[in-house]
């Protein structure tokens, strides 16, 4: 049974890139997508999600605020996937403080068309480590 993934990203193109990448992983399946934190919280209720890939900078409710709330009421692992989450950066530190289980930086901006090429291995490894934990 593949693990269920929710993608939360305000950039429509990025959601497409991420979904396309996840389709290449046989052990994961995209079951929900949301364009901001609030929409994700609404969709999370009652859903069976194992892993959330979460952008940080989004309108209405940003990723950190979503993280703060979602961590209380879901068992799903949450992996930040954001261009501002470079290793050891203040954003990455804040995400860890709020309980992000994993953090991966998008390689070339909020819309990273080269996600699979540049960060695919790291993202897949992180996703697998999180669901296995």
């Amino acid at each position, binding site marked *: 049974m593949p693990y269920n993934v929710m993608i939360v990203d305000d950039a429509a193109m990025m959601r497409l890139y991420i979904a396309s990448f996840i389709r290449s992983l046989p052990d994961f399946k995209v079951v929900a997508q949301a364009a901001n934190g609030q929409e994700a919280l609404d969709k999370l209720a009652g859903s069976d999600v194992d892993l959330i890939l979460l952008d940080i900078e989004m309108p209405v409710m940003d990723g950190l605020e979503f993280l*703060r709330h979602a961590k*209380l009421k879901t068992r799903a692992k949450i992996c930040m996937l954001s261009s501002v989450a470079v290793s050891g950066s203040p954003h990455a530190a804040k995400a860890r403080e709020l309980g992000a289980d994993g953090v991966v930086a998008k390689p070339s901006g909020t819309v990273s068309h080269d996600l699979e090429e540049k960060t695919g291995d790291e993202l897949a490894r992180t996703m697998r480590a999180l669901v296995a934990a």
Partner: protein
Amino acid sequence: MSDEMDEIWALYADDGAQALDAMETALSALDQPDCSDAASHIAALFRAIHTFKGNSRVLGLATVESRAHLAEDLIGLVRDQGVPLDQEIRDILLMTADVLRDMLEQTERTRADVDPGASEDLMVQLRDKIARALAGADPAVQAPPPPVPDDGREDAPDIPVRDTFDELPTDVSSVPADAMTDPATETGVTEGATTGPDLDAPMAMLRRIDDPLYRKIFVDMADDTRQRLRAALASPSDETRAAARRGADNLSHAARQMDLPAWAEAVDRFLKLPAPDGEQIAALLLELDDCQGRDLGTPQPAQDTGNGFLARIWPDLGKLAALGAEFSPETDHAARRADVIGAIVQRASAEGLIRVAEATQALLAVTDRQAFRDGELRLYEELAAVESATGEVAPDASPRALLYRWCADHVFESLGELSVLLDALRNGGAHDANYSRFNQLMRRIHHACQHYHMDTAGQLAMSLLDLFARQQTRGGAPDPILEHIAQGFISTIELVLDSLEDGQEVLQTDTLQKLFAEASSVAFVAEGVVSAAAIERKLGLPREFHRVLSPESVRAAADALDAGLHFHVIRADINDDDRLAEAFVLWLGQNRTRSITNVTVFRGAETLFDFLIATPLSHASVVEALAHLDPSGTRLHCTQTLTADQSDLDLPEAAQALPPVAGISTEMLERIGEIATGQAMIHHMQKELAEIDMAGEIDNRLKAAGVAPDLRAEIRGLLGGVTEQQRDILQLEGPLLAQMAILQEETAALRSRPAEIVLQPIAALVKAQAAKAGRKIAVSTLGGDLSLDVTILETLRNVLRALALHRVGGPTLPGIMRLIFRHDRDCVHAMIEDDEAALIAPEFFRPLDDLVRQAQGRLRQVQIPGGGTRLHVTLPLSMVVIDGMVVRIGSVRYVLPVNAISLITQEAPGSAFTISASGGRSVLQLASRDLVPVCRIGTPVQQDRIYVILTVADCRVAIPVDEVLGQQLVLLRPLRGVLSRLEQLNGIALLAGGEVGLVISTAALEGESADVFTPVGPALTPATALQPA
């Protein structure tokens, strides 16, 4: 000022400006008559001012912080206390934004706090409004709030730390038995006096100190006053004493307002003293501590904590803490734990708080007290998350505060364990269990930092947690740089906490900031690219692109700069137009156009993007291309064309200044070297002692003196025991010596960096400079993996950079350049080779030559046959551990690198002779009939019998010596003072016998045939040789 500090101030300015922009945007939105989402704008307003305040605090800008703090309090009243956001508040906040913007500009310029007097009006208005708002918000409050200190700080509250979980309400008898297990009581209505507020309580019972906002303000004031008093104690001066008196005066006033007579009396007694001395200040501090413990440190009864989730489970948590403190595996005890755990799980599940329920449930399975405590901590982390997310205000039912205090109380244990864990991770223990424990401990240290309001340290802890967690995913041990930052963090935090415990000023703020900057730039260093800030400055990137460049984006931007491409910013409104988005992305991949990065720009709930692109196209061509893609002209705009700052070309490299070597200074390395040498010296003496046949010698003399055999046997036995012990000591010392040698080498290795971090930026710089001149140059590098001490790298960087820039800055440019690093026994060679024949003019060459000579190095330039020039920079290695052969010549000890020695031989007298045909050159004829030139060092030896044959640059040279003293590892130190002029020496080393050895430069022996240098007098001692220049 270091680059890191420049960067921190730049970040402060950026963040501050962004926060103030956000503040004004929110105020402007709130000013609209049809503002429909006031709550989110107020939240944004609060976040903005909170960020601004925090940043000001980090940089020690107390006045700026205090103004922001008051504004935050005022917005907090609107957000949390239902105070209406009237026109007056909006006006005051707009004025605050103006004043803070002025302060931001001034502090960025001066890097110092502002004059408090200039913003006094604003303070008065803010205080006045807060007081009136409070009076209106809470009818029980009639008087204005106590004044907030002008230059107050929030850090380091001196609350006595106890075993925090035991402070939870543990009076089980005060809780009705059914309230523990009956879910029907969850509404809080039927919980009566236990958990809900007593609405019939007389007003007199509601003291101001019980109001969370008043309490917070008062606690802040008390902390501020204590800080001032400690400062007056530590550095008595008119200024510190006056500041302490002002703080005390404010506190006295506030204490009366808060109805805390003991505080007021204590402070008033102090204020009556005409010139309080240190003892009187210390006495007041003690009294304030007592007051704090009595009035603020004691948990309030549960009934005062409201009726939120946390308040409702508070009594059960108290019982759980009590049961944990007396943990027993007995059935009866386990049953009682199960009851309490069940009650909390039920309440958490009813609220949908899955993780709280699971963390509580996990406590059922534990079998010992330690595991219970760990489980309890996990539960409190979950509860703290609830508190943070729900904003439940229950000051005395704050799991976050308890968690922080517990972690602060146990922070030294956590730091100690963390240090051990780091060793384990390095030495083959890089598995998940160790990484998980690292994560857990770092989190605890973060909480402890929160307790002490050490924001930078807290952030750094999380930053390290992030870096190590990513390393765990990649697999393997953390790399040395990462490990080094973590070790530096641990040592610094220990120092900071020691200072706090002793009530001293914390002096390590800079170190923490540097470590944080280092941690934030690890990804860039690891990728070998220039820093994001360098690209930001070079391109003059708009603010939205600051701090978002990934290492990949930085590399792409650097390549685009090398290629001489143009940079444009394109605003793209394509999020809901798939066709246009696809066409735009397709265009980005064409005609050498590339997307460097992109950021989101919010327009209400819509997402737009700003793309930073690099392209050979001009602005006009880009505009034309966008018009083709978007004929409506509404979705794609080229908003800006950036011009790389050509006059500032070396900025990228300046930003590339070598990463700091936190914690391992040259002095520290030298000190470790001295300890190692001392240890070797003791070992040497012990060995000499052990080699004496003391028992035999004494026995012979006793025998000769006619001492009776039985007495001699007894003495022999005694001496035999001593000799045995000496051998034991020698045996024990063996591994110790080996450990010291490892420590020396590892410490020296920690200061090392790959030469790549110098070569690559210079190569990029050369290409950029050539591109600026409209030319192309092919630059290649070799030897980037050579690992060198940062001090040497820094010298090489300065020299090579100047030389390389000079080569490409002249009228004729080379078309090819090679940058090469090479390591040769005891020196490092760097070379710049190009195809331009003209040598560098003396007036430019000479200052660089002087610079290299100061570092005991050599700079040469030679023309290559067939055209081209080669520039050689040779620097002796220093601060490295070398394997040396110690020899004595006259009374001076020299160290020769073991790896250069091909033979040590004792020859018959007359083996060395002079060859007249060779200009009187002295040669040694070996037994093999080979002839080797003799090179005499220092004082002539007594007899030319012992020779050390060195192989230098494929040639051999024989050095006559008086004695070969032995091989040892030595730390090569740079020459200082008068010795620095001796080019034939590579450095000095402290030897095992306590003497100083002169380390011969084998490079200097190259081609030498006569005495290499004038003898250095026998007066050379550690004291003279090691003294600073």
